[in-house]
């Protein structure tokens, strides 16, 4: 069963200098999911552009694709000359950690589903199942704004880079932007702007480098990039075979890629300009609930219902670590790195937070306190604390 998505005919020309040839991508309706690639000087492009040859059988294509997959694995294996734990041997182990809850934010009347930090390092926005979106100054625990969405299950929320707006969405299939106001009595819903439109629930959203663009992921299996001012769809990303649950933008100097994770167990890395999937990893055994880039942008971590978190090396194109324990049998819902990337925080469905030594692969701490599953977790922009949101209606800030 494939969702019917309004067809988007998209023509973008990308001219790239130096060695790469001219690339033109034409995106057709989702139902067909055809990406015709005209790559000058590339023979495979000619093959893709051809009509179906009567002599071509599916079996032939299948064996060709399998042979190529084997070749890819061989190429990857050739470069695999060291394991992460070997690199970790020469590094000192971490000491003991004492991480205390410094703030407990109470105010949501139902499950907290998502949260995001403001760039000012102390404000946060959170959203919950009952449709409430709250902006807090987490340092003073004051609630600064509250919006009631016209839908329940607000699964996604994000703070704008300027600190002047928030975006949110969920079962309404949309992502809406609410400009914030200095006037506490102003009704924010009046200035609400509907930006993204998917054909099913919105699972995650994120502003790009400015307030003017939003990246979304949806239960309809796609991700999309939107122009906030006009609501125009700038680029759509097709490739997941099931609901997409999470996304994260790369912190690279070029800022042109992002990673997404889905119910098809795949983590895909996308080129924002062309809409193409440039890397794909399928090693998890169940839904990927959360993906987060390593601070340098050279790797990313994922958290899954298979009770593991994993680290993927983008330059070597492989999975390099699995963070798991026999006693951890329930899924990881959200992950984030500390500032240096040495620690990975994971919120789990068994109400706990596990802290991992990214390098050595060991768990350095387990944190209790929430009374229901941890649904969302983010480290603050300056790394001084992290905040976890839970189905127990509260958010906790810990350092």
């Amino acid at each position: 069963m494939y969702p019917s998505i309004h067809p988007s005919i998209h023509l973008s020309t990308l001219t790239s200098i130096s060695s790469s040839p001219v690339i033109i991508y034409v995106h057709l309706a989702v139902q067909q999911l055809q990406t015709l690639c005209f790559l000058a000087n590339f023979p495979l492009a000619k093959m893709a552009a051809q009509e179906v040859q009567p002599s071509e059988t599916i079996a032939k294509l299948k064996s060709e694709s399998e042979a190529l997959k084997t070749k890819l694995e061989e190429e990857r294996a050739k470069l695999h000359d060291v394991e992460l734990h070997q690199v970790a041997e020469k590094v000192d182990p971490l000491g003991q950690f004492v991480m205390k809850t410094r703030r407990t934010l109470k105010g949501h009347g139902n499950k907290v589903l998502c949260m995001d930090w403001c760039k000012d390092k102390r404000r946060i926005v959170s959203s919950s199942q009952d449709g409430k979106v709250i902006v807090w100054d987490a340092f003073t625990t004051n609630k600064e704004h509250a919006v009631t969405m016209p839908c329940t299950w607000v699964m996604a929320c994000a703070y704008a880079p300027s600190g002047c707006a928030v975006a949110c969405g969920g079962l309404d299939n949309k992502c809406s932007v609410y400009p914030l106001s200095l006037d506490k009595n102003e009704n924010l819903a009046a200035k609400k702007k509907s930006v993204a439109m998917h054909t099913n629930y919105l699972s995650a959203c994120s502003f790009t480098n400015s307030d003017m663009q939003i990246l979304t992921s949806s239960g309809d299996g796609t991700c999309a990039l939107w122009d906030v001012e006009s609501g125009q769809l700038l680029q759509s990303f097709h490739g997941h075979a099931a609901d997409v649950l999470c996304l994260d933008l790369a912190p690279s100097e070029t800022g042109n890629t992002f990673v997404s994770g889905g119910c098809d167990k795949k983590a895909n890395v996308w080129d924002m300009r062309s809409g193409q999937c440039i890397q794909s990893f399928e090693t998890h055994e169940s839904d990927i609930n959360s993906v987060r880039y390593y601070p340098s942008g050279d790797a990313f971590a994922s958290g899954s219902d298979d009770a593991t978190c994993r680290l993927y090396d983008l330059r070597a194109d492989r999975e390099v670590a699995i963070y798991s324990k026999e006693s951890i049998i329930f899924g990881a819902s959200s992950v984030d790195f500390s500032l240096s990337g040495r620690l990975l925080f994971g919120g789990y469905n068994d109400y706990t937070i596990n802290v991992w030594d990214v390098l050595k692969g060991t768990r350095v701490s387990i944190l209790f306190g929430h009374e229901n599953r941890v649904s969302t977790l983010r480290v603050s922009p300056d790394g001084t604390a992290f905040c976890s949101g839970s189905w127990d209606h509260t958010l906790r800030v810990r350092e």
Partner: protein
Amino acid sequence: SKIRGDTVHEQSSVEAMVLEMQDSKSGVKSSEQKLNITSIPHVVTGQDILAWIANHMKVDAQEAQTIGTMLVAYGFIYPLQDHKKLILKPDVSLYRFQTPYFWPVQKWKADNTDYAIYLAKRNIRKKGTLDVYEQEYYKNLHKWLNHKWDFIVMQAKEQYRAGKERNKADRVVFDCQERAYWIVHRPPPRTHSAMDYGVDRLIDPNAEENKTFDYYRRIIIFTQQAIMRSKVKSTVSLGAILKHMTTYKDHDPFLAPCLPSNPWQTDDSSYWDLNMRNVEIPTKMRVERWSFSFFELLNDPRGRTDFKVFLKKEFSGENLAFWEAAEEMKWGTASSISEKAQTIFKTFLAPGAPRWINIDGRTMGLTVKGLEHPHRYVLDAAQTHIFMLMKKDTFYRYLKSPVYKDIQKKALSPAPHNFTPSQLEQNAQNRKPGINPIIIWQQEEEERAKAAAAAGPIDIKKLMASKLDRK
């Protein structure tokens, strides 16, 4: 799944463990207990369950508690006393293993019709036994399922009759099991159940995708591109990951103390005040961070400002100005693209432009051609070229320059706070609200507008003269 309470994957390992716990020889010790006047078999205590888990999974008491609570929250084990609290108590509280019929299983969802029958049955048995939240449910179900209400009442009566035919002990056990099942699947207010339902997954990931020509062609194209994409050796990439960790180790508040103190720890926000976006004198740690990479320098507004001071002295501000203009176009609104493209062309790329950037002929040619039909990525090639130029040359000269050395000298090194417990209490009472980011944004917008106005019509003669000077 982000939304649903259950997943298939967790089930099998949990089910295996629960079965092991019930093994007559190696499982949890069980006994017969009296509940009111009835004797119930196979009852276990919370502390015995926890001891078994701790021993079997080789974990400490707190972790065993977490695992045990999960078993109750999912409905594999249920409490006989205080039945609405789905936690595992580390004492002599009594529990029983739920019958597999009532285990959480993905294929058989606890649906509203069954719940309505259950509530109706309890109503028949004894009027007024329903809790307030159950009465709410019952009222709503009566509304939603009105069309099949006769069927529900009939089923309820039938089940009630069949129940009466069982012997007392069996009936009590079954009632406990059934009640436990519904506490998990329709939790009372303030009960945290792991089976709290939400939105269903839309697309079944297990459904076989139609393996047509297109499906395989897509895989072939993707795999070929993946093979051709340049990759690096693990020693190189993992080495880079390690290098990043080492470089930033002292800047990670979880690994090294922030000076003067972590605001979340001491309730003193000096650390944030000292590190505001455009503070006059930055801290030493912040200035050090600018040297880690060109990206760090540009990303920090204070760092970028300092870099601009250096560029002004070198009369080479046009590169950064172009890069910033290109960024603004890339991340700006769709409607502003053509206007920005025009301004950028006139200012940086046109022959004789006032802030002409020096890029190779081929890049310039392609960029100018692209600007005839501008889109947000039209400046990518030129922008990358300029960025690399700054990164590989200008950045390193900046780090060796008097401008950078000067700011390093001036930079602050705050002494660590040493608050007494009573001072900490004071701090907690007096947490400062901080400036609203909206106000900061408005201030910065004003400054940007002023700077743009000041830049105004550029005196070309003066600029060319200074360029010649430099040569």
